[in-house]
């Protein structure tokens, strides 16, 4: 089960006649009428999938906060890419990636092409840059005019810019390191894996033969902040806290930017903080929410029946 989340004051919830959007009081602000799926609001627009007759036509539409359809496109012989997963194609920094059926480009909020569809693959814009592929060989980061800002030249991005850093690796997958917004190697490409963790931090992992040893935190100047001691961490710092577990440890806690555990390793699993709370899986098997002081403010509902999102 995928739990609905509030974005921009609205959360998609299944009603009797389809998916609608509730407000923070639980009332349907946009009546339930979208089938089969509806996504979260981002930058004032949510993506919905509509399955009109005939059944082999899939319409992808975008609605505004009033529920009004701002854009719609029908696709023949198409199905939602993942019937039960989230819809990930949303506006990001005012740009929406779209395909002309063959190649990918970007439209703005008026749904006019800003960057013509001439790339075999693109990612969303993050911090003003998007990863783009020309054919199989050339990979780069482009700005919002379509200008190539960083040529990856034989390297490949592992994720998006997050806190001024992005992980890159050789085409073979490793060695890996971190580069900044001008393409400079902040952490040299000599590690087994690398991740950008937001808020100006990243991590890289070493290996010992086939097995990965552990990961260490680095800052945006390439300074190593911790030993290679982490066996697990979440995707991003949030307000200076990162869910992490020590290699060989017995649980997940939260570390600050020095790598010190400020919330002990007491959880089976833990996600990033979203505002005041983070969702965690307790040792008891319940899922719950923890605040930034480490207090579990609510728990219940066996996660086996309810995998959290």
């Amino acid at each position, binding site marked *: 089960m995928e739990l609905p989340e509030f974005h921009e004051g609205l959360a998609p919830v299944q009603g009797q006649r389809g998916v609608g959007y509730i407000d923070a009081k639980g009332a349907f602000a946009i009546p339930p009428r979208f089938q089969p799926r509806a996504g979260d609001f*981002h930058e004032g627009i949510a993506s919905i999938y509509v399955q009109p007759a005939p059944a082999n036509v899939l319409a992808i539409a975008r609605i505004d906060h009033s529920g009004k359809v701002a854009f719609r496109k029908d696709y023949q012989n198409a199905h939602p890419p993942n019937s039960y997963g989230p819809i990930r194609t949303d506006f990001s920094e005012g740009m929406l990636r779209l395909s002309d059926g063959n190649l990918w480009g970007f439209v703005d909020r008026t749904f006019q092409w800003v960057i013509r569809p001439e790339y075999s693959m693109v990612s969303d814009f993050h911090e003003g840059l998007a990863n783009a592929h020309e054919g199989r060989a050339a990979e780069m980061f482009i700005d919002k005019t379509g200008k190539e800002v960083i040529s990856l030249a034989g390297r490949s991005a592992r994720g998006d810019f997050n806190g001024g850093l992005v992980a890159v690796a050789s085409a073979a997958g490793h060695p890996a390191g971190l580069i900044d917004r001008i393409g400079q190697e902040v952490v040299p490409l000599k590690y087994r894996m690398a991740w950008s963790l937001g808020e100006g931090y990243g991590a890289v992992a070493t290996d010992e033969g086939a097995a990965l040893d552990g990961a260490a935190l680095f800052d945006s100047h390439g300074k190593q902040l911790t030993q290679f001691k982490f066996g697990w961490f979440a995707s991003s710092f949030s307000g200076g806290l990162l869910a992490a577990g020590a290699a060989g440890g017995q649980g997940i806690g939260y570390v600050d930017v020095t790598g010190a555990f400020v919330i002990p390793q007491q959880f089976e699993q833990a996600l990033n903080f979203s505002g005041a709370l983070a969702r965690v*899986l307790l040792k008891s098997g319940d899922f719950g*929410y923890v*605040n930034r002081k480490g207090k579990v*403010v609510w728990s219940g*509902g066996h996660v086996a029946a309810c*995998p959290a999102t």
Partner: protein
Amino acid sequence: MRTQLKTTAPRLLLPILAVVAVTGQPPSGPYPIVVGVDSAHGAFSGKLGFIDENGKIVIPRSS
């Protein structure tokens, strides 16, 4: 921004970093919960609700 919490104990071996798209703003409160789950026969009968940052249920029903 969505990641599946796993029901098994974490494998404290890299790489199991959760890769989460950083599209738009992260979700905010109220925070979703599910209550009243009956998993005795593997069946799911939970009700969706929402809590505030103090853990108080603010939307108590499946809306």
